[in-house]
């Protein structure tokens, strides 16, 4: 029994199993909840690494669930892009989970801790399932699993939870449900013209279908793009995001910003390049439209961020802006642009989660998060704030930190495709990013002492270590970009660019 060939499905199933165990464990054996949660995600991470190594060595892994041959059976595919995303999801997820074992003790109401871990595991299951799905409907099912887990996680009561979390979650649910319905219609229209749901088969049959029913194909693509744009918080469908992040506990915002919206953006990449194929997509007006929206997202997200007082809200609007970069990468029809966008998924996950987790550590110690309350914290929590500052500088795009590398690829992409307007957009937004991040760094390190006599010391170790690991990632991943690029470049060349 060759267990390693079952890794693609086990990466999804093992967290699912653990998630179902959580309510029972929480009721009868409370001590086992955290160790099992962390070890299960660590196991998934190791399996993703092993699968990635095998994919680099011998090509995509195709797994037939239930032993039924596609296109009648459900297929799970682990190709280069899926392996890359699985590593990002399980790796960053693992670090956030370790952080939340300490965060949950103080900041989440005791009776909800078991539920919190069950939901986080469900979220990781859903996201992993989305990246390995080889079948449109499987994608939808795991999408909904991840979404419902997200909606619930936003309302998990913090001890200092604000009342606003219910409305934030309701708006998120409500917009997310519309998006899911749109995606379902897209699947329906696509099935109508091709007669199959298997992604590879769908791509083949779509070429024939496009000559007979071009408008139906366009309609189904349109529904998909609208649905996933809403899920990935692309301007102007980003309205659920700031409220959801401000009222959710810090690890939940980190999970959502680093993982959830990225996986939704990954699906847009898949739609454009693997499922519909770039030939069909480039004949429609979707690419220029999405480019325009991405450009707006980049600039307007930064403008909003400058105007905020609450640090978490600044980071939320910054996420809106950064997702614009990722989508811009998808719409530039150039190898460098695509590589930049995909690389930005990893880089932004690491950078943004460092910052959100550090802010969470500050809230853990002081319970406050306006910019003015961050005055002078750099002296009291040196390591945490060092990681935060490095991640902030990396986001601005200062070489040789990691943010610079992905922006560089995208700049190359815009120059190659002669979209000079977007070269200007990327450079201008780096300046805007500098405005609000330098302001934060100024307050943290240079503005004098903390207000009041609150006794603040460094964050606990279980919270500090993930922050430091992610912060180191913000420095090192740029220099080590060759390693993820191995997976990305094969993926991009498989896309046919």
């Amino acid at each position, binding site marked *: 029994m060759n267990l390693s060939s079952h890794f693609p499905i086990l990466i999804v199933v093992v967290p699912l199993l653990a998630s179902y165990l959580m309510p029972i464990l929480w009721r009868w054996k409370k001590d086992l909840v955290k160790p099992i949660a962390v070890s299960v995600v660590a196991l998934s991470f190791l399996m993703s690494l092993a699968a990635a190594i095998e994919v680099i060595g011998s090509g995509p892994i195709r797994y037939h669930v239930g032993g039924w041959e596609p296109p009648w059976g459900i297929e799970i595919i682990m190709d280069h892009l899926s392996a890359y995303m699985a590593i990002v999801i399980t790796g960053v997820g693992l670090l956030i989970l370790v952080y939340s074992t300490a965060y949950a003790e103080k900041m989440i109401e005791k009776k909800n801790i078991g539920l919190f871990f069950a939901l986080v595991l469900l979220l990781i299951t859903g996201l992993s399932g989305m990246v390995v799905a080889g079948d449109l*409907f499987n994608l*939808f*099912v795991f999408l*909904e699993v991840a979404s*419902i887990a997200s*909606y*619930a996680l936003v*309302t998990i009561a913090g001890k200092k939870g604000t*009342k*606003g979390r*219910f*409305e934030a*979650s*309701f708006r998120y*649910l*409500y917009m997310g*449900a*519309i998006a*899911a*319905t749109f995606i*379902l*219609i897209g*699947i*329906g229209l696509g*099935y*109508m013209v091709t007669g199959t*749901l298997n992604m590879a088969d769908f791509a083949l049959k779509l070429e024939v279908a496009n000559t007979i029913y071009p408008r139906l194909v366009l309609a189904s693509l349109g529904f998909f793009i609208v649905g996933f744009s809403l899920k990935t918080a692309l301007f102007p469908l980003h309205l659920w995001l*700031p409220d959801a992040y401000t009222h959710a506990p810090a690890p939940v915002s980190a999970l959502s910003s680093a993982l959830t919206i990225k996986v939704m953006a990954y699906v847009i990449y898949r739609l454009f390049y693997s499922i519909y194929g770039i030939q069909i997509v480039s004949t429609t007006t979707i690419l220029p439209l999405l480019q325009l929206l991405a450009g707006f997202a980049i600039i307007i997200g930064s403008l909003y961020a400058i105007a905020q007082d609450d640090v978490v*809200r600044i980071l939320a609007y910054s996420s809106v802006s950064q997702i614009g970069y990722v989508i811009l990468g998808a719409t530039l029809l150039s190898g460098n642009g695509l590589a930049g966008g995909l690389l930005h998924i990893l880089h932004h996950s690491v950078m943004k989660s460092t910052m959100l987790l550090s802010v969470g550590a500050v809230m853990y110690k002081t319970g406050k998060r306006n910019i003015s309350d961050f005055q002078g914290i750099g002296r009291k929590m040196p390591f945490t704030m060092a990681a935060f500052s490095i991640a902030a500088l990396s986001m601005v795009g200062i070489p040789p930190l990691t943010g610079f590398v992905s922006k560089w690829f995208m700049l190359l992409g815009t120059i190659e495709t002669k979209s000079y307007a977007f070269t200007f957009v990327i450079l201008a937004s780096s300046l805007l990013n500098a405005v609000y991040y330098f302001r934060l760094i100024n307050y943290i390190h240079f503005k004098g002492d903390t207000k009041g006599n609150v006794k603040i010391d460094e964050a606990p170790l279980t919270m500090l270590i993930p922050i430091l690991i992610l912060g180191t990632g913000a420095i090192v991943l740029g220099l080590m970009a060759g390693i993820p690029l191995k997976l990305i470049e094969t993926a991009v060349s498989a896309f046919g660019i």
Partner: protein
Amino acid sequence: MIIDVASQYNYIIASALFLIGLYTMITRKNLIKKIIGLNIMNTAVFLFFISMGSVEGGKAPIVVHGSENVIYVNPLPQAIILTAIVVSVSVTAFALALTVKLYEVYGTLDSDRIRELRGGPR
């Protein structure tokens, strides 16, 4: 041509229901009405899928022992819809639980009033 379009009345009704549901979700301020709108939208999608799977003169897709050469309707959309119904039920249940909580916290079910009470959009 009118007859051709009108014979596809399934799809026309499904589209009409979808638009009614979407309109309700967007314009009505009462939270419960928004959730009902969501349900109407989902039901419209289910209708659309199932009518897509119907085959002329087909029977229900159940294999009875000892019968061959029977035309069945397409069972795949039906399986999809079963799953989608479960998803829709879960989302509705969660939305209703949130509504109960919202009423408890704000004392009103009007989404505009809740916006005001929370301090307005930022």
